[in-house]
């Protein structure tokens, strides 16, 4: 390298690069124009995300191998009995559903459609403490779209914010930038659940002082945001503080989904034209079939 370039070249390229990066930053912040760049780059980087996941999956495999027979038998029995309980509920559900459809027809209300579901595995967690995001191993190849709701066995986990070919990034409901319209199961009162950036806590904001909300109330999605289907459980109210000096109550809720340790999650397809014919049969589980 000629010494003559030492002074000038790095400085020039430094300013150029900073300006390009600022341009990227502004266009990413203001709109969707750099989304193709991002998803192309994340396809290239997908192997790194797989690498990150290897230690966890190996640990999982080892603990499966080391499990004792007795434990397995016990687990199996437990699962069998819980499956019987669930199947009984499903039987009732069939009757209830038929009844519901008839009543809705009587009322001329539109029927509720069953949602298609895609089983997904979690392969990474965003290490940035400010962002509650996880990386899941289904991408646009599998029909995942931005805004798609993500659930686990307990309840709503979050929604997809970024899709690449084979993976997607899901923002959890506890992220400081996430808000979700909900309603109280007991009386149908509507509210909005905001993530506040701390793990395992949601703020229910703008509840008037005289509203009927109690500790232990279950909040479900109200579908008013037009993203989440109606009626999936989100959180349980853990504290209600009435402060006469404030206009609104301070209500805290705890998410029902196990946000920190669910490995298998479900993505609900509420955008049928995209999902039709894309799912593989192994991955798609009709929601209310009780088959194990």
């Amino acid at each position, binding site marked *: 390298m000629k010494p003559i370039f030492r002074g000038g070249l790095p400085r020039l390229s430094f300013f150029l690069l900073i300006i390009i*990066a600022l*341009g*990227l*930053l502004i266009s*990413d912040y203001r709109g969707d124009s*750099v989304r193709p760049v991002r998803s192309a780059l994340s396809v290239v980087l997908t192997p790194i995300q797989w*690498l*990150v996941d290897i230690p966890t999956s190996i640990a999982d495999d080892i603990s499966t191998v080391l499990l004792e027979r007795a434990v397995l038998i016990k687990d199996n029995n437990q699962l069998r009995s819980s499956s019987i309980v669930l199947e009984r509920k499903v039987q009732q559900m069939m009757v209830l559903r038929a009844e519901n459809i008839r009543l809705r027809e009587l009322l001329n209300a539109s029927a509720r459609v069953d949602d298609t579901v895609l089983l997904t595995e979690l392969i990474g967690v965003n*290490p940035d403490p*400010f962002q509650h995001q996880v990386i899941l191993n289904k991408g646009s190849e599998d029909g995942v779209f931005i805004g798609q709701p993500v659930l686990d066995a307990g309840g709503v986990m979050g929604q997809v914010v970024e899709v690449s070919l084979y993976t997607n990034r899901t923002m959890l409901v506890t992220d400081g930038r996430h808000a979700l319209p909900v309603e109280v199961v007991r009386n149908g009162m509507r509210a909005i659940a905001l993530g506040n950036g701390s793990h395992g806590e949601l703020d229910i904001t703008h509840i008037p002082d005289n509203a009927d909300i109690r500790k232990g109330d279950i909040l479900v999605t109200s579908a008013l945001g037009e993203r989440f289907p109606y009626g999936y459980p989100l959180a349980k109210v853990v504290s209600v503080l009435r402060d006469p000096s404030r206009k609104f109550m301070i209500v805290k809720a705890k998410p029902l989904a196990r946000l920190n340790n669910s490995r298998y999650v479900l993505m609900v397809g509420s955008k049928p034209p995209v999902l039709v014919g894309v799912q593989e049969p192994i991955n798609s589980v009709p929601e209310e079939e009780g088959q194990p």
Partner: protein
Amino acid sequence: MTQHSPGGLMIILGTFIVAMVLSQIPLPVILEWWRPEFVALSVIYWIMALPQRFGVGSAWLVGLMLDVLKGSVLGINAISLTIIAFLTLQMHKKMRMYPLWQQAIVVFLLVVVNQFIFYWFQALAGTSALGFTFLIPAVVSAVLWPWVFVMLRSIRRTFKIS
């Protein structure tokens, strides 16, 4: 000095892939602030060791990759890594002369700059900061620097990258 073996490039790339994987490995919630900035440390090392091969442009590219991997707004890490790459480039000759602990102090300051830039832009994009906790990674990185330095140097010497 003049001929660059293509193998060397692969090794450098390999160290960055390892650094990126380490920056993504999930940690328990209590430890999540205690993660050293492995990628920034690797950038500082390679600029100090091979300023003629690894410059601000490479740092920018690494930063862009890191942005995509972290899911942050595109360009934040590119900017912060380019800036610390530039600062390191300005003083790499001095830094080579320092004993390891003194290098660690410089590394601390560089990572502080990195963290400040990253969280400033992060705050502009809508996430709030919690006091000065975001400086913990700078301390951890500085403490870890001697080991990172010795390890990367032995890698560089084993594969004769120059």
